[in-house]
């Protein structure tokens, strides 16, 4: 058996090395393109999901979010809760949010929006929004009459860059009017403009907790949500379990839960799209390799007949062609991997621009391995069938062809 395989490989290697160069290059190129097609789409999807993950953690919810339980609107006694949460192992810092609907007005423009009250010192330890001020500065604890606004609400200098209704290019230093639902209407000095790349974060407007209390004219010890940053390397579901164990009664979600809730359907659709791409690619690979080997075997019918006549077993002949497709597939996968890596390198420098940020392809090792295995299986089938057909032909019929 080993000797037979050795002879098959010997014939296959000579067949490829001394066969038509044009056919070799073309076949390898097609397999490489098929492989690239199989890898590239999932890498974009993965990149898109990665951006969503990063943005959720970095600019929106931190690693974990606590929200009111059931039909309740607020988390009560938030100061005690903050103290408790900050003591839980794995928690780096928690920050309370109080979001309220408002109307923002600027130079005749008005839009409905949400203003979120924060404690800036806590917030700096939970999100990186403070690092993404495109104009002006971030808030500081205790500040009154100051507001920071996201770029999708403030608007760009070039309106064509706006993604919806805006205030019409608000800059740091400008004054905007905020009308609260309790009837308070107040002028705010715009301290800064936020531009994180996250659609959610860039839509909001933020004031300090002290400012909120002055608007409501009372102490506010309740929040609409609590966002938590965990220590690097901490497994969030463990912290979630710990929070429940420490007696937290509110709804606790990790960023993975949020992502599943927000993008689960999209991810499912992407996966379906990806499966269709992979199946179509595999069919192309099978058809191409089938045709290549069919042409090779049909052109070599007489030679195959002669080999059988001089005592070469038909399995050696079949394995010769199977080895040829496996070698072609190996070369295709190598070229394809190089192509994918080159595209990833280029798109890392020049990423795709999506509303939720810049997306660079992320190639998962498991995708590389799975698609390579699938391609090898497809190649094996595509090489075996035509070789088997011709190798089973009667010797004299083959020799007379």
């Amino acid at each position: 058996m080993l000797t037979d395989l050795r002879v098959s490989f010997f014939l296959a290697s000579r067949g490829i090395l001394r066969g038509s160069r044009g056919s070799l290059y073309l076949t390898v190129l097609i397999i490489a393109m098929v492989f690239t097609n199989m890898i590239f789409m999932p890498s974009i999807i993965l990149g898109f999901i990665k951006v969503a993950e990063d943005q959720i953690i970095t600019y929106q919810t931190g690693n974990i979010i606590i929200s009111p339980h059931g039909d309740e609107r607020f988390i009560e006694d938030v100061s005690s809760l903050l103290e408790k949460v900050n003591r839980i192992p794995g928690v780096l810092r928690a920050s309370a949010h109080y979001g309220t609907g408002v109307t923002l007005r600027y130079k005749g423009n008005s839009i409905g929006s949400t203003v979120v009250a924060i404690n800036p010192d806590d917030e700096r330890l939970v999100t990186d929004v403070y690092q993404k001020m495109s104009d002006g500065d971030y808030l500081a604890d205790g500040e009154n009459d100051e507001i920071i606004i996201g770029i999708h609400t403030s608007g760009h200098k070039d309106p064509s860059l706006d993604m919806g209704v805006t205030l019409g290019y608000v800059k740091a230093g400008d004054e905007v009017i905020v009308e609260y639902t309790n009837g308070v209407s107040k002028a705010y000095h715009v301290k800064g403009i936020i531009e994180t790349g996250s659609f959610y974060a860039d839509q909001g407007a933020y004031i300090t907790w002290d400012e909120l209390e002055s608007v409501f004219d009372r102490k506010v010890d309740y929040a609409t949500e609590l966002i938590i940053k965990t220590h690097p390397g901490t497994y969030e579901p463990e912290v979630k379990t710990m929070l429940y164990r420490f007696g937290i009664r509110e709804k606790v979600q990790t960023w993975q839960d949020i992502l599943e809730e927000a993008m689960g359907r999209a991810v499912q659709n992407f996966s379906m799209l990806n499966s269709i791409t992979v199946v179509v690619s595999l069919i192309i690979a099978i058809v191409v390799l089938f045709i290549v080997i069919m042409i090779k075997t049909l052109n070599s019918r007489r030679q195959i007949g002669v080999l059988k006549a001089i005592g070469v077993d038909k399995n050696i002949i079949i394995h010769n062609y199977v080895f040829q497709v496996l070698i072609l597939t190996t070369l295709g996968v190598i070229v394809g991997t190089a192509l994918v890596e080159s595209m990833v390198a280029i798109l890392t420098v020049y990423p795709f621009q999506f509303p939720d940020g810049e997306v660079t392809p992320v190639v998962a090792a498991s995708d590389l391995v799975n698609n390579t295995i699938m391609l090898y299986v497809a190649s094996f089938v595509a090489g075996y069938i035509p070789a088997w057909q011709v190798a089973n032909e009667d010797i004299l019929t083959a020799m007379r062809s």
Partner: protein
Amino acid sequence: MITAENLSRVYEMGKVTVHALRGVSLTIQKGEFVGIMGASGSGKSTLLHLLGLLDKPTEGRIILGGIDVKDLTDRQRTRFRLKRLGYVFQDYALVPELTVEENVFLTSMVRGTPKEEYLAQSHQILDRIGLSDRLSHKHNELSGGQQQRVAIARAMVNRPEILFADEPCANLDSESSRNVLDLFKQINQEMAQTIVMVSHEDWHKRYFNRIITLRDGEIISDDPPS
């Protein structure tokens, strides 16, 4: 060495039945150089194919080296051809992707002969037929006569019990044909090699030590050359 009893071969070609061989019986002894001759369509190639296990008779039986080949499976017939028979075809039938040397040692490789041994054997036989300076040449870099000598070397490298040659000079000019026939004669005489060759050229008769002539699928004469 070879015994054929009452061999018949019938081909069905659509509605037409062709009797290529009709009850042929013969015996060939070790060391004979047998020429199978006859006009086109006389059944000489059919007889060679049956004796060489490339085809199966419709009726009759063949005993090669004491073995009745009728009951052999396809796989056993392949092994039999590999280990005990050698073939030279009209159009050389070299594997185009292989060099001269590789074409010659291919069957030794299939037999599982160690590399050093099959390289030595192939070099030795190529040296003997005067092609040791063409080891790494491909078939399209050789003349027709040289290619046929390589085919003979391939057939002889494993020292087969019987060498079958199907009109080996049909595509050669007369000088190349003479060289090839001289080589066959030399192999037959020096190595006592049994050779069964199909030919339709009258002048080839002088190389054979026995001539079987066929007509319409039947033996009409079986004599030494006159």
